[in-house]
């Protein structure tokens, strides 16, 4: 179980959260190749708008620049990364080695994930690893950080400082198990949580009530995940095709109700409403804005949501 009063890595994200500010993170997906300029352009768009940016690890199992390398480029460009790491592509040897490497490159936040199954990506014939699941990865990295030993028990040469995160999906099934799984992730070492994107606010409130009743918000910072809808088409697509995401009919109607060229603006207005709503939910310490391939709107979104300027700590 994480103790909030003990400094884990001293990252900007950790400092923002531990000083009681409402944190803001977003995503910064690496390019599908070695195009550093493309990544740096994205960084320029979000710099100053968020406390840290998640660097995804071959998300949806599509091959991209490695999250460690991309995170390191963010560090060089003055943007704090939350390096995502999935267990789909690496066993415990590679995972621990990569954590050492990430720490050496100045990366101070990581998000431990199992990762999307490779059948969703561009190499569906590949072999997966899943030597560890996301909870075991948390446990392994936490043990390196707090006890100075790798999974085998061997001592490390030079410790790591890492603020450890995990994902939570309150919208997948079985619903009653979702909060138990969250508790397990916190037990396994999660210092912060970023949730799957929230559209069903009622179900999210129920989830958070259960989490707070168990006292989970006391030992972990929970950031509410939000994704702006660009169009009614995107809403319908996500509702139908993305497992674990349900978009209530009234939201689809709201976006549909706007004229075609106004739907993106309506999506942003909806997001701003959602940000205000989650701010009021007990136990929520921040927002994780997943503006998928919409980094150029992050400044506007955070500005209009009253989240700027970000604290300088």
């Amino acid at each position, binding site marked *: 179980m994480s103790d909030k009063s003990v400094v884990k890595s001293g990252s900007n994200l950790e400092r923002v959260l531990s000083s009681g500010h409402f944190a803001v993170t977003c995503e910064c997906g690496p390019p599908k190749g070695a195009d550093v300029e493309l990544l740096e352009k994205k960084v320029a768009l979000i710099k100053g708008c968020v406390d840290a940016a998640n660097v995804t690890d071959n998300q949806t199992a599509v091959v991209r620049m490695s999250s460690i390398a991309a995170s390191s480029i963010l560090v060089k460009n003055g943007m704090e990364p939350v390096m995502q790491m999935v267990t*789909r592509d690496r066993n*415990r040897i590679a995972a621990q080695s990569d954590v050492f490497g990430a720490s050496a490159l100045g990366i101070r936040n990581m998000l431990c994930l*199992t990762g*999307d*199954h490779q*059948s969703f990506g561009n190499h569906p014939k590949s072999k*997966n690893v*899943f*030597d*560890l*699941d996301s*909870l*075991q990865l948390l*446990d*392994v990295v936490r043990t390196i950080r707090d006890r100075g030993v790798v*999974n085998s028990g061997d001592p490390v040469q030079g410790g790591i400082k890492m603020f450890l995160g995990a*994902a939570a*999906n309150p*919208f*997948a*099934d*079985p619903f009653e*198990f979702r909060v*138990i*799984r969250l*508790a*397990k992730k916190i*037990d*396994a070492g999660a210092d912060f949580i970023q949730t*799957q994107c929230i559209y069903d606010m009622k179900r999210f409130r129920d989830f958070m009530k259960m989490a707070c009743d168990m006292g989970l918000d006391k030992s972990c910072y929970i950031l509410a995940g939000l994704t702006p809808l660009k169009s009614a088409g995107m809403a319908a697509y996500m509702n139908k095709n993305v*497992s*674990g995401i349900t978009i209530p009919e009234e939201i689809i109607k709201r976006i549909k109700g706007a004229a075609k060229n106004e739907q993106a603006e309506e999506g942003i207005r909806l997001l701003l409403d959602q940000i205000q709503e989650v701010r009021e939910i007990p136990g929520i310490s921040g927002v994780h804005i997943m503006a998928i391939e919409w980094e150029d709107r992050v400044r506007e979104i955070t500005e209009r949501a009253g989240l700027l300027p970000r604290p300088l700590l």
Partner: protein
Amino acid sequence: MIVADPKPFLQVKGYLEDFQKILVVGCGTCTTVCLSGGEAEVQILASGLRIAFGKDGRKKTILEECIQRQCDLEFVEPVLSRVESENIDAVVSLACGVGVNFLADRLGKTPIFPGLDTTFYGANVEQGLWAEMCAGCGSCIIAHTGGICPVARCSKHLLNGPCGGSEKGRCEVDPANIECVWQLIYDRLKRLGRLEDLRHLLPAKDWSTASDGGVRRSTREQLYDI
């Protein structure tokens, strides 16, 4: 049981182009039960090969046999003798991969080809349908999961509960055909009044007992005493 599916006919025929006298051997155990490699399937494949090669204008001798088990020397020895005595050029096995290997190790200079794709350890869950139930990982953890195996039946082999891709009891990898095993485990433990079992973290698993630890053997010392 071990489940295996027939290979595409043309693939099997392709293996045999260069051989004249061919023996198709079935297996009377698992692949008979899962209707891919028993006596009937031997007859079907052999007839198909005769017809197909005949249409190509090439007359080959296709022989048939089905033994009780291709993974036991007692049953395999007569096949080895037959291959030798009848100057058979090639063997097609309709056993699982175990049978093909076991014969290959003993066939000397005679080539052997698989007629099946061996898939998994499974059960006959309904008529005409087999489903994977065990991954043979060598260190069984299902005492913690209500007797239901997430190593074999979760698409990501997760040990600590369902991922975000579990929806209405189905797995996002193929909702039409795959159940979310963690939903099954959850429901079963709930019925057993043992949901507490899921509260504890299962640490990183020891995979050295699975195939990751190298090729495995299993001994029963008591048998050597007989």
